[in-house]
């Protein structure tokens, strides 16, 4: 394993150990935070009991739907916009302010429009995620060197084939960055929306546990979310690094 990776793991383990120590030493009170080791055993108990199987499945499904939808829509919209300069210029201020908009403020509207099912949560995740994909797709496509497009014309390729075989492959690393963000935003959006108002899902269960002073359940679930998101994110990071290795000059 590389030294940096090793150090990184040590830093993370150190932080967990420090928290554990502070709590056992009584510096951080137990009714505020339970030690990480107890969070882990609480999580194990939750998973073993299977009573939150449905919530976990619901959340993961909704996150997955948001991810896939935002990736597909984002790449398509980005590709089209890159060719429609006038439209893009008009939408540019929207792109620039998009992430300043408090997206959760639209949640009540979404509930009104789509009802109390899974769709509003998915929508929030999608709305947060899709712009990251669009922006990164545009960024990648803008960078395609002109000489590669000339090469495409020399090979007498159609516009569609040029997009599929030259433009998108060239932009792939940038689009991948967009995907990585889309995964993060889908989790943030879906779980956040569940937290605000919903009747099921991990986010809902965390807020339910908080309101019922069930710290073990709450921290078990928080640990679950953290571990899940960090694992997914770090794996994508490693994969991206591998992909980029070949491309780095």
């Amino acid at each position, binding site marked *: 394993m590389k030294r940096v990776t090793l150090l990184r793991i040590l830093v993370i383990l150190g932080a967990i150990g420090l928290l554990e120590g502070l709590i056992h030493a009584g510096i951080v009170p137990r009714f505020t935070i339970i030690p990480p080791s107890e969070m882990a055993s609480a999580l194990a108990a939750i998973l073993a009991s299977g009573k939150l199987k449905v919530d976990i499945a619901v959340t993961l499904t909704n996150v997955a739907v948001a991810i896939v939808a935002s990736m597909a829509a984002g790449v398509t919209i980005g590709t089209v916009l890159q060719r429609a300069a006038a439209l893009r210029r008009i939408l540019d201020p929207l792109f620039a302010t998009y992430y300043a908009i408090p997206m959760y403020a639209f949640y009540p509207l979404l509930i009104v*429009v789509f009802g109390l099912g899974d769709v509003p949560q998915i929508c929030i995740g999608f709305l947060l995620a899709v712009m990251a994909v669009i922006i990164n797709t545009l960024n990648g496509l803008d960078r395609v060197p002109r000489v590669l497009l000339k090469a495409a014309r020399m090979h007498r390729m159609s516009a569609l084939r040029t997009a599929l075989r030259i433009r998108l492959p060239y932009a792939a690393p940038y689009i991948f960055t967009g995907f990585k963000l889309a995964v993060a935003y889908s989790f943030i959006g879906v*779980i*956040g929306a569940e937290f605000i108002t919903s009747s099921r899902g991990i986010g809902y269960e965390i807020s339910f546990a908080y309101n019922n002073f069930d710290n073990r359940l709450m921290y078990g679930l*928080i640990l679950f*979310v953290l571990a899940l998101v960090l694992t997914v994110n770090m794996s994508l990071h490693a994969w991206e690094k591998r992909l980029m290795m070949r491309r780095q000059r």
Partner: protein
Amino acid sequence: MKARDTLILVAVVLVAWQLLYWAVGSIAFRSPAETVRSAAVLLADPRFMPHVRESMLAFAEAFAIAVLIGLSIGVTLGASRLASEVAEPILVALYSIPKVTLYPVILLVFGIGMPAKVAFGAIHGIVPISIFALNAIRNINPVYLRTGQVLRLSPWAAARKILIPAALPEIVTGIRAGFCLTLIGTLLGEMFGAQRGLGHLLMQAMTRHNMDSIMALTLLLVVFAATVNGLLLALDHRLHRRV
């Protein structure tokens, strides 16, 4: 040119909004005109301003903390190659966690009230600001620094004349991202653990299904965020054009 495009965009949004209103109906939705009217009523209400003040105060504190801590973390880590390589993926991973799930922890630590919202706003802003600052420092072309050495600049002069100008544009981009996220974080904080503030009003309107208030508050928040972000963006562009 730019102003015209923005106007076109605003017009397009208004038209889309009106069309959506006709499609969805008035039970659960309000037209642009009605929303502007309720927003005006809200602004004229003497009971509204204290909430605005409360939110702005919380946001200002949170943002100041986020900038201070974010820059310290980013600059410190960015100065060392090893530290930045170790830390960057951790920071990016922290950025990607759904911070709402941490809100109960914040409430348990700080209790309901001002400190909790400030803390919650700040944790949203710290991470992006530190990521951008870290990369800004790390990616300074080493040739610039060596040029400083060749010119025998004092460390202070090197920082003022080379480091800061070279890193500033990226740092400002990070501060802009941090601004947006801190605002969202503060509002989210008010939605749960607070008795005052715009976030609290929004949550109250949601539980009471008060459509007028929901729409008016959403509009005011979006306009505020978009305006300040626009100003920061202009500064951002100015700085980036230089390099």
